[in-house]
């Protein structure tokens, strides 16, 4: 009975949504806000990647909100799964092939993650992608070795310092410029590594913060297996 009512309701929702959506023209040119952001992204911010300029410079306050939500989720997960007795992780080491090759691949993955978040304003990439890649590399080491430990105190100090750097850069824009998160450093030549003002600095701080947070989240989850 419940299945029949659910299918009927979903059929009605799907039919009317599709009826409205097929009237939106597919593939028209961008108008309004999109066109203004595309035309004035090199003059006003100096970054070559337009999506990075929108996420960090035009809508930088929303990025601050997103970093806060991720911090709250990692803290909430640590608080819900809190246990006073520390438990061990997996029951056995992995095989020899996995152990040897994960020792070789782990520094290369960390290097790739750092490259992605440093060059965020020139190529596709940025802070969130680089932090996720670094967390995946640490996860590979967690799975292969039973005794690979990370220092929780160091991770939490890195995360707090990176978050405070973001807010301090914003306040520097308020003191030396006109508004919060204003671009106050010189722009440089578009296309070089040291260009676009404060955008690389903010993305480096976000990359460190997201990488440390996701590593602490995975460590909390993996330590609770009996």
């Amino acid at each position, binding site marked *: 009975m419940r299945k029949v009512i659910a299918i009927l309701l979903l059929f009605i929702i799907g039919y009317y949504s599709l009826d409205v959506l097929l009237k939106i023209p597919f593939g028209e040119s961008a108008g309004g806000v999109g066109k203004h952001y595309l035309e004035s992204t090199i003059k006003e911010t100096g970054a070559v990647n337009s999506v990075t300029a929108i996420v960090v410079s035009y809508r930088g306050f929303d990025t601050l909100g997103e970093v806060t939500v991720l911090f709250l989720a990692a803290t909430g997960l640590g608080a819900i799964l809190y246990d006073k007795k520390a438990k061990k992780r997996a029951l056995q080491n992995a095989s020899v092939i996995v152990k040897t090759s994960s020792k070789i691949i782990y520094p290369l993955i960390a290097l790739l993650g750092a490259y992605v978040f440093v060059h965020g304003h020139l190529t596709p990439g940025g802070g969130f*992608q680089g932090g*996720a890649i670094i967390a*995946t590399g640490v996860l590979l080491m967690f799975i292969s070795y039973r005794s690979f430990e990370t220092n929780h105190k160091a991770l939490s100090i890195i995360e707090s310092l990176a978050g405070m750097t973001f807010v301090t850069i914003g306040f520097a824009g308020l003191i030396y410029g006109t508004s919060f998160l204003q671009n106050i450093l010189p722009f440089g030549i578009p296309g070089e590594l040291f260009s676009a003002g404060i955008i690389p600095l903010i993305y480096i701080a976000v990359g460190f913060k997201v990488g440390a947070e996701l590593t602490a989240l995975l460590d909390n*989850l*993996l330590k*609770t297996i009996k």
Partner: protein
Amino acid sequence: MNWLTIVVVILSIVLIIAAVFAVYQKDLLLAVIGTSAVSVVLSVLFYILQAPDVALTEAAIGVALTTIIFVITIKKTKRFEE
């Protein structure tokens, strides 16, 4: 009907089949594999729609991290749905 349209139609059919498989399985590990298959095909579709930033984010977060936290939860609870 050039070849790009044919590739998009085939990928969309694979996407729908993987999503239906993920919802109808009783073994929860196979359902999680279906969810990560949806993420992989979606990442390719984002690249075809000329959005490389979003494709990189979906491939890094949706495939690796979501699957591992589902598998850890299944290990601590039951594997088969009643």
